[in-house]
């Protein structure tokens, strides 16, 4: 009987230590998550097949009027002020175009700093990344894309894909 009590006593003390250990581990993992302020919001893929045919040397501008998917291409809701939006594209590695620019415009804004239709940034072959669009108020923000491309000489149909990674951060 005494042995049983002793055993259960030891088990309870072991349980006490285990609880502290597990909590310490969970706390450490949770703290890492809290300090991680960069959040990848989306990876946007633009395929030229979605934009239609483009002949050699032809310059074409695509807007949401023609390609619906370019309207509100990015939409996010912030719950704190001053969230910085980063856009990282692989435009510099796209071949088959002499020009390829993506104009990112505000289509939904919060506060008075920006207006709908303002250009937030322009991504080009020479400048494929942008940091940062300051979302200075809390609420829902949305952005339209406007794409202008000029096809260079190609020997056959050339599929191309542009990938844009959108991320948000609390610091510039």
């Amino acid at each position, binding site marked *: 009987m005494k042995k049983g009590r002793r055993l259960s006593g030891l088990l309870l003390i072991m349980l006490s230590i285990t609880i502290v250990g597990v909590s310490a581990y969970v706390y450490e993992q949770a703290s890492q998550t809290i300090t991680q302020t960069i*959040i990848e919001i989306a990876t946007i893929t633009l395929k030229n097949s979605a934009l239609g045919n483009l002949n050699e040397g032809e310059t074409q501008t695509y807007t949401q009027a023609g390609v619906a998917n370019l309207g509100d291409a990015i939409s996010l809701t*912030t719950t704190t002020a001053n969230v910085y939006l980063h856009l990282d594209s692989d435009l510099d590695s796209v071949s088959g175009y002499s020009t390829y620019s993506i104009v990112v415009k505000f289509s939904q804004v919060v506060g008075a700093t920006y207006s709908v239709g303002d250009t937030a940034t322009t991504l080009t072959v020479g400048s494929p990344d942008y940091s940062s669009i300051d979302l200075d108020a809390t609420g829902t923000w949305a952005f339209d894309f406007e794409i202008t491309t000029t096809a260079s000489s190609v020997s056959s149909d050339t599929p191309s894909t542009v990938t844009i990674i959108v991320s*948000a951060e609390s610091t510039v």
Partner: protein
Amino acid sequence: MKSRMNFPEIINRTKSLVSPSYFTLIASIAAWIASIVLIMFPTIGLTTPVYPPNPTPVYQLIFLGVTTCLASLYSAILGYRQLKE
């Protein structure tokens, strides 16, 4: 007709409710597990991939801290009592 509890009675009842027993141990362990689930479960806890984390993780961590202290303390006291008897 029911008589109202006087203040010392309330204190005594509260004391018996929170004094280390297997009931308080199980209750505190249940709360501790709940706090861990709250933190670890992706759709309701800290690991939600939204910015900023919602609900505020600080409260979840405080909850984890309090429940850890209680569960660990109750377990240790009951274990110590068992060993002592």
